[in-house]
């Protein structure tokens, strides 16, 4: 069974069978990552461009490794956002890349909808590596993979996404993917960070972190933006830490058995206390490992479609 779409733009409308297929394929690739020679010839002769309009070294390295381990030719094309206004338009850049005969484009961009725009500009398979505060599908897939690996199932699992939901590309992808797989999803954070009408997606809103811990099997904790502009959304880091930060005391008080995910990089002492970030409940580094396997699976499934 091949994937039902030739692009991966988001988790909205990705059917259960496709998610299942990607997770199962990632299982196979994860075994390869444990071998001494971590390379298969699956995508030999294919060229993948990592087109990054936003600095995200981690995501880019993860994709790059995945591409190399599948023996694809990986090319990085980074454009700093500051030079965009003066430089070449996205349309011209993509036309140029396409003229070099590439097969797949992995795009990261600060503007939502740009990956979709790319599908109209060129014939390559497009993989969204994060667009604005819209979607980041491979992150959601690696989160699902990690949860399934640890707990053994996704169906009827209670998952809460904690933090700045409104300015996260991870939240929406997680909500769509988890709900498709039958999990119960809630969000927890200060009300200024909960996007308008999100409850219409069938998620509960929780304003108490203690309740979120008590009620859920999994917490997916998002990074809080600390830049000046983001600071309009909450009074102070101190208040955030006090009412939404997760530390072991809080975990122990409420419940012991919980799985904690974080897409990284962590603000230690803000959304996660160090004793939690290094503690027994978190699977943060496993997420990173699984990220490579998931991206290999996505690249492989899309790259061998046609």
């Amino acid at each position, binding site marked *: 069974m091949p994937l039902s779409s030739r692009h991966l733009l988001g988790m909205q409308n990705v059917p259960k069978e496709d998610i299942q297929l990607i997770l199962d394929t990632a299982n196979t690739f994860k075994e390869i990552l444990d071998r001494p020679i971590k390379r298969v010839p699956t995508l030999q002769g294919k060229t993948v461009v990592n087109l990054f309009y936003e600095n995200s070294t981690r995501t880019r390295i993860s994709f790059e490794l995945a591409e190399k381990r599948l023996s694809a030719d990986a090319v990085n094309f980074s454009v700093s956002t500051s030079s965009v206004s003066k430089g070449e338009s996205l349309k011209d850049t993509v036309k140029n890349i396409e003229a070099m005969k590439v097969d797949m484009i992995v795009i990261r961009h600060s503007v939502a909808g740009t990956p979709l725009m790319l599908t109209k500009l060129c014939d390559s398979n497009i993989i969204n590596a994060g667009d604005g505060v819209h979607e980041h599908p491979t992150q959601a897939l690696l989160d699902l993979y990690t949860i399934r690996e640890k707990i053994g199932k996704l169906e009827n699992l209670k998952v809460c996404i904690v933090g700045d939901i409104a300015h996260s590309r991870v939240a929406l992808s997680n909500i769509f993917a988890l709900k498709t797989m039958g999990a119960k999803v809630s969000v927890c954070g200060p009300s200024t960070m909960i996007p*308008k009408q999100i409850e219409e997606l069938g998620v509960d809103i929780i304003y108490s972190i203690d309740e979120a811990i008590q009620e859920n099997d999994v917490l997916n904790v998002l990074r809080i933006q600390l830049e000046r502009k983001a600071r309009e959304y909450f009074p102070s880091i101190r208040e955030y830490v006090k009412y939404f930060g997760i530390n072991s005391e809080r975990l122990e008080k409420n419940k012991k058995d919980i799985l904690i995910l974080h897409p990284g990089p962590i603000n230690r002492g803000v959304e996660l206390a160090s004793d939690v970030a290094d503690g027994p409940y978190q699977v943060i580094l496993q997420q990173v490992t699984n990220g490579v396997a998931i991206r290999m699976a996505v690249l492989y499934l899309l790259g061998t479609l046609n």
Partner: protein
Amino acid sequence: MKILLKNLTAINPEQKLNEKKIDILLVDGKIAEFGQNLDYDERSNKIIDLSGKVITPGFIDIHVHLREPGREDEETIESGCKAAAVGGFTAVACMPNTEPTIDSAEVVDFIKNKSINNIVNVFPVAAATVGRKGEFLTPMLELKEAGAVAFSDDGVAIKTASILKRAMEYSKMIDLPIIEHCEDESLAFGSMNEGINSTLFGLPPLPSVSEDLIVMRDILMAQYTGARVHIAHISSANAVKMVREAKSKNINVTAEVTPHHFTLTDEALKTYDTNLKINPPLRTQKDIEEILLALKDGTIDCIASDHAPHSPEEKELEFDYAPSGIVGLETSVGLALTELVHKKVLSIDELIFKYSINPRKIINLSIPLFKVGEKAEFTILDLDEIWTVNKEKFASKSKNTPFDKRLLTGRSIGICNNGRMFLNGEFVA
């Protein structure tokens, strides 16, 4: 010019006129004869049979951006007037956010001169404040004398309550309206309406309360000063309700709506088509329902397109980087006939109020009448023609429309004004 038009249905609510089988003899830009069964074969050098077509007082679009001076690559006064003629408008009022701004008599003169022999009359709206910066009043008396018909900082709202108060007090002296683009500056950083769809599409939200706040401010200021304020491109249900209430208190407020705001909702943005990026943004079905109600009950006085040409280079950008605005002159009447008249929201008489009588009154223009001796200024409609929008055939220099390939029912087939007549895509006089 000597043309005999035959078999029209003439409708002019201003004269309480609605008659079928009307013939009109036009001589040198005036109505020489008007009535049934005119037979002037030997005296007219052209006879045009317009059976089944409707003739109305000339339509006007009081909110267009003609881009000249400054962005002649996107539109010129000439190309914009051509688009207006194709769209069925004998007149337009053009907004002052040009380069330079229409904030001096020289720029008003420039525009007037450029349009002097055109079939379409161009009425400049001058800025309310110098450079639309919200600091100093423009020379409104001089601007009026040069031909400005209203004042607006369109693109933005007049910056502060303090300068707004002065602008209203001053413009009241000469009975010209202030046209307001209602948007609270501190909330104006999104690219689409805030709601479930902005959450779903991940685009920065622009809340409707940003519009409501300024509409409320402007209504209160109009009440306080007694001046006239016209709310441009109203889009939020709350704002519409405020206008309705203000009118019931006899405050001098009028309002316009664009065809896109009564046709499309923010759900359309799932395609991330930058031709759907508009300010104010597309709102929700609930807002549309309130707008339709307000068109019917008279809360919304007129329909204006907010014709905003943009070059393809500007629109073919990432969504957040693309400028707001779409062209509208050539789709406005078709959309209104399709969405309002054929869906029985408005009668044809009511539509004529929205496109001709009300907007003309807002900017102090007289209403063209169908009477012997009057200037011939009219629009000819085919209410039932089914046609497909084709942006490649637009007379406008810009093609940024979300309505390309849309099937519409009804359109304007021609206009007559200033001694010239444009019919079915060509000048017949």
